[in-house]
């Protein structure tokens, strides 16, 4: 690989995605519907919920191809940089590629410009990426992310939901995406209070994913046998922190106990 150099009028500036395009490294868009002939691996339910200290983000671990479970341990929640995270649903391949490009975009900007983008700027960048992906989405490779972060300028957590055309919508209490989104967001809506603590928010998010997996076959539930749990992360003033599996296991055991109690022993 040689050092990239450009004429002044063609210089991509701090935009890594533009640099990738200029170097001819972006994939070609398929010219006919891909999903008509091939089974595409899909990732499913992700949620993000705001609380006073920041944001909790979570996603289940299942990927499906049609009615098959193709992966049990896929990850759909990623750190975007120190103070933000991105969660994805949709065609798994292009979605993970989009996340990689987005992570690099933020880091590249920070290095070239010597200062990080604002949270708003990051949200807009992701919006452009989803918009640029529209031709591929039209061929059956849709990707719909959620972006969440801690806005250090405002000292508050913020959430952004997207649609397949790149539409960017800031949400105030919660955001969700994927096939289980309806069930998950209903649970969150019923349980959400402005006064929730970090702990309570995490439990609410886990309960929401549990209920989504109970109703939607494409969403994976907690797998106590194999020790597979959703990816859950908090994003606060101290940054993106992922919860460990032991913690999640304990929380899920208590949720399952709670569900059993609610049923009052009826089977």
């Amino acid at each position: 690989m040689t050092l990239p150099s450009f004429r002044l009028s063609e210089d991509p500036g701090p935009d890594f995605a533009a640099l990738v395009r200029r170097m001819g490294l972006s994939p070609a868009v398929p010219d006919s519907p891909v999903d008509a002939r091939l089974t595409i691996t899909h990732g499913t339910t992700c949620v993000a919920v705001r609380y006073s200290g920041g944001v909790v983000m979570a996603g289940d671990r299942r990927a499906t191809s049609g009615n098959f479970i193709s992966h049990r341990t896929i990850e759909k929640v990623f750190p975007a940089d120190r103070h933000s995270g991105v969660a994805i649903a949709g065609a798994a391949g292009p979605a993970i590629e989009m996340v990689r490009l987005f992570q690099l975009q933020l880091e590249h900007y920070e290095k070239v410009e010597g200062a990080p983008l604002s949270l708003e700027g990051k949200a807009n960048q992701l919006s452009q990426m989803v918009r640029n992906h529209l031709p591929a989405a039209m061929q059956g490779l849709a990707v719909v992310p959620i972006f969440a972060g801690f806005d250090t300028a405002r000292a508050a957590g913020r959430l952004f939901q997207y649609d397949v055309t790149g539409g960017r919508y800031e949400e105030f209490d919660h955001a969700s995406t994927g096939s289980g989104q309806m069930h998950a967001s209903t649970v969150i809506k019923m349980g959400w209070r402005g006064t929730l603590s970090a702990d309570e928010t995490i439990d609410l998010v886990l309960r929401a994913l549990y209920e989504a997996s109970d109703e939607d076959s494409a969403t994976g539930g907690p797998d106590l046998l194999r020790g597979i749990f959703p990816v859950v992360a908090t994003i606060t003033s101290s940054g993106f922190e992922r919860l460990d599996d032991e913690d999640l296991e304990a929380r899920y055991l208590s949720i399952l106990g709670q569900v059993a109690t609610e049923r009052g022993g009826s089977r």
Partner: protein
Amino acid sequence: MTAPFYVAPEQMMQDRADYARKGIARGRAMVACTYDQGILLCAENPSRMLRKISEIYDRIAFAGVGKYNEFDQLRIAGVRHADLKGFSFSREDVDARSLANQYAQMLGQVFTHEMKPMEVEILVAEIGHDSVGDQLFHILYDGTLIDETGWCVLGGEAEAIGSRMQEQWVEGGTFAEALQAAVDALAGPDRSLVVSEIEVAVLDRAGPRRAFRRVEDEDVTAVLGSNDTNIDT
């Protein structure tokens, strides 16, 4: 029509080299050296905004002296090269040696083929997983690539600064010792440097994935303030 004067190639190269050296000597110097936990980069730089030292990749830093716009252009090309390489292959495949070679090629090309050579001297530093893996690549205006061990000096008066560095620097010393040696070497016996005139950054072996970190003024003062006569804090 008159024929152009014949200039011997030796003379032409000599003139270009003199031109580049003069340009570089006008700016202020910088020093890089290893210490027990990483690599220290320390530059004399009165500007807070126009940096001489910066991050290229997870374990790679860049420093340049001479003409700011020229080395900044090289810095950005380096960030692009590294990020593209990491994107196409993997983060582990990005290394300082290949980047230093690219820089050497580019500077050599410009030196022989363009109207004017670049008036810069640059450094590509990479932190290893242990001190044996630490690398310092020093690249001159004509594309000469030098693989330095322990420490290196870039810019005008490199010889004087280098001999002071030779006396003061100890292998495997602490961060404080390394910083003290670097600042003393840059200042020399007859001059004092204030903290706002030096730019300090490290590649920290024990740090997170991105090992590059700027050292804030307070931390520099904490090291130098107590026992140094050359520094007015």
